[in-house]
């Protein structure tokens, strides 16, 4: 499946300055595209910079360098007023559903608010549209006047999704939307997201560390490690064959619920290192089981592995051949 491009991110970087000599390299020189109606899964562990990428994409955080093109317009140069006009088309769903809802507003008020802000419809029309959207994400009309705390976590997250989708956006950044939910609620939310994409043709940037959820929802998957993109490819290809040793490690750590399937050998030790003043080298070199001296010389470029699959590893060709 191919998609017409909607978002193009080129050489995006975000640095958080600590003091005169130190900065956190949260995102370093990342490029990717998201197509219309496509879901790009962005996976990585805590500290990999995936949340920062999502916030930069919405300009909720100002990028330090690089450009973001959205529907043909330059998002990085947009003024505050232009940005506000774009807000209905660019939305966000949060990790912690309860915390993302104003505790003093009813569900109906919360979902109607974006419409009140961005359309000239009457209050009654906004309410009706909000009620309709709540129904579409699977919430009963009786919930309309309830407060967030009266709902289950799954219902709260549906409200978050309804708020994001009520203005019919082109792109929704899903920032770990299922990570605080139990597995059954997670599956319900994934169903809702899938159904809404089919109905509205919206694009998702699905940020998560949960590979099971990402695999289920994404057309393509991008893998981040320590602020760098290390591999990107179609979900099917990436799940079959990982061309970066970090992606392999990430997949081997997923435990299948079937006790008869043997668990894959566990390959990496240690933890993700500090992102302060990152060096120009492969970010995974310290934990990589197959690293060689050249890995420390420079950040490897994205190598085309064929079939729109890219990996930033100097030993990727050997991995593909099965030589390692």
């Amino acid at each position, binding site marked *: 499946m191919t998609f017409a491009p909607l978002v193009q991110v080129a050489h995006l970087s975000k640095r958080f300055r600590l003091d005169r000599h130190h900065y956190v390299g949260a995102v370093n020189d990342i490029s990717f595209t998201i197509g219309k109606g496509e879901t790009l899964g962005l996976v990585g*562990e805590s500290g990999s910079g995936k949340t920062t990428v999502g916030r930069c994409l919405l300009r909720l955080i100002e990028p330090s360098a690089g450009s973001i093109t959205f529907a043909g317009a330059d998002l990085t140069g947009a003024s505050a007023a232009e940005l506000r006009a774009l807000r209905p088309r660019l939305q966000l769903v949060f990790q912690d559903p309860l915390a993302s809802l104003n505790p003093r507003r009813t569900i109906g008020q919360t979902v109607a608010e974006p419409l009140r802000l961005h359309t000239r419809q009457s209050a009654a029309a906004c309410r009706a549209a909000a009620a309709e959207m709540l129904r579409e994400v699977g919430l009963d009309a009786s919930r309309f006047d309830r407060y967030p705390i009266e709902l289950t976590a799954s219902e709260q997250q549906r409200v978050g999704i309804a708020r994001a989708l009520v203005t019919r956006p082109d792109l929704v950044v899903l920032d770990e939307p299922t990570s605080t939910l139990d597995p059954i609620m997670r599956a319900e939310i994934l169903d809702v997201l899938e159904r809404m994409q089919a109905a509205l043709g919206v694009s998702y940037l699905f940020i998560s560390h949960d590979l099971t959820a990402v695999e289920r929802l994404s057309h393509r998957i991008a893998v981040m490690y320590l602020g760098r993109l290390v591999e990107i490819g179609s979900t099917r290809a990436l799940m079959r064959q990982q061309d970066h040793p970090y992606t392999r490690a990430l997949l081997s750590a997923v435990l299948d*619920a079937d006790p008869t399937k043997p668990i894959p050998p566990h390959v990496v030790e240690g933890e993700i290192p500090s992102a302060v003043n990152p060096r120009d080298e492969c970010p995974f070199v310290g934990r990589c089981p197959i690293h060689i001296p050249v890995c420390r010389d420079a950040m490897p470029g994205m190598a085309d592995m064929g079939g729109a699959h890219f990996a930033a590893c100097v030993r990727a060709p050997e991995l593909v051949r099965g030589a390692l």
Partner: protein
Amino acid sequence: MAFVASKGPSRRLHGVRRVWAGLSAGDRIVVLLFALIVSVAIAGPWLAPHPTMTADPAQRLLPPSLEHWLGTDDNGIDVFSRLLAAPRTDVTIALVATLLSVLVGAPLGVLAGLFESHPRRVLSLTGEGMLRLLDVLQAFPVFILAMVLVAIRGPGTENVILAVAFVNFPVFLRLVRSELLSLRQRPFAEAARAIGRSDLAAAFVHLLPNALPTVVVQLSVTVGFAVLLTAGLSFVGAGIRPPTPELGAMIAGGAKFMALGQWWVSLFPGLALGAIVFVCGLFGEVIGRALEPGASSAPRRRRAPPLAAAAAATNAPAADPQALLAVDRLSLIGDDPEAPLLETMSLSLRPGERLGIVGVAGAGKSLLLRTVLALPPPGTTVRGRVRFEGRDLETLPAAELRRLRGATLAAILPNAKAQLNPLVRIGDFMAAQIRAHVRCSEAEARRRAAKMLVAVGLTDPERRLDAYPHELSGGMAQRVCIAIALLHRPRLLVADEPTAGLDVTVQRQVLDLMLKLSKEQNVAQIVATRDLGIVAHYCDTVAVLEGGRLVEMGPVAAVLTAPSSAVTHRLIAASRGETA
């Protein structure tokens, strides 16, 4: 959604009645007293049995009697009547002045909070300037400042109101500013920006309403303080002048007679003043509690589902003579005896056995673990028995239980970092743990601690012992917690979501460590988790909970490949991200 099914509309009370229903007896008394003060402030002058401003020299300084309940003052006016009339002056001035100060202070507080971190330099300087100006203003003692203001503008009700409002508005400005700064960090504030609210609109529409409970509490404390300030100004002659009935002026008027034994003239207004200030303060706390979102909504209640057909697990198993832990018909009763939090659960665990506990959120996994550790939540009642090494944990003396906990019965809880005291170095914390159970020297304890850190796979133990918890990563902190749990060679390790919050590549390392310890040291484990993958590969048996009931239990391979209950089916499908 089964879990909120019991919260039907019929159980929702509205408005005042709902708030009243949620108050305790003490709180209700405070509310009634506050209502009394307000009523007297409104109707007091009309209720007075005697004239409140007309002097009568013949009745001068009479002691309390049936005619004059609280005596008369030096003008021959009935003290009780004046006391009924006075609050109108004091309370009105205080209320108006406080409202004025909050109406000015709160919006300025919002602006100050928004401006000071604003990227535009003009605005950030304005915000900073506002705060420095306040510093100067607040450097003066409040009372002196108010006195000076009244002295400049002259006495009179409006000027007292202005003075009291002026000295109080910084309180609200600062309060709202600090509330705003913390509310801005909350995700719903970012959500407001994400849907396209401007910062200013978001602050007034979303943040300020959430600061209200704190403001209202402060409001009522300030009213009390403003009453005191008004009375104080009048006491020194800089506020309301006689003959207008006013508490401060009344106290001042009677003060000189105190020494002559005519105590009633000052004492009763003084007591009244004290009572008003006190009740205002208490009233603030009551309102603060009532305004918390969800404070008066019904307590969390989960509906117990109908028992699964093959719920043989709820029957008491034949007593296993080798059992390390035997849980026998355990129930945990919360507020509603009809819907127990845990219902007649029975299970047993042999030495070295690893039991996984699964279920959806709210199924009772954590409650079961806490009850097994003899740490049930406050306000709950435990029925049934938990026997550990043949001893009944519920009836064990507290000292025995302490000796058991942390030694042969150890726990690992989620969010390891939160359990380590941020002010204590890892080594000191571990040494204290060791010496709580074993008599040994400090150096010996440290040596043992270092050995245990190596055992859980931490390199450079000496450096880790000297580290504070914030210097450790999540994975390291969880390893330290496991090391602490293992210090005394426990026979049972109770772990609640031991890898929650850890990265997947670190999760495997922690699980492998727990497995290795279980095998090498024959440690039995109970692991509560939402991740069936952990159960499938790191446990021997699995217990499935739903709505506080044990619905299925058996060997992992049997339960996960041929589940008998609907919830297990759903959990297995959900582990693949699918709905059953």
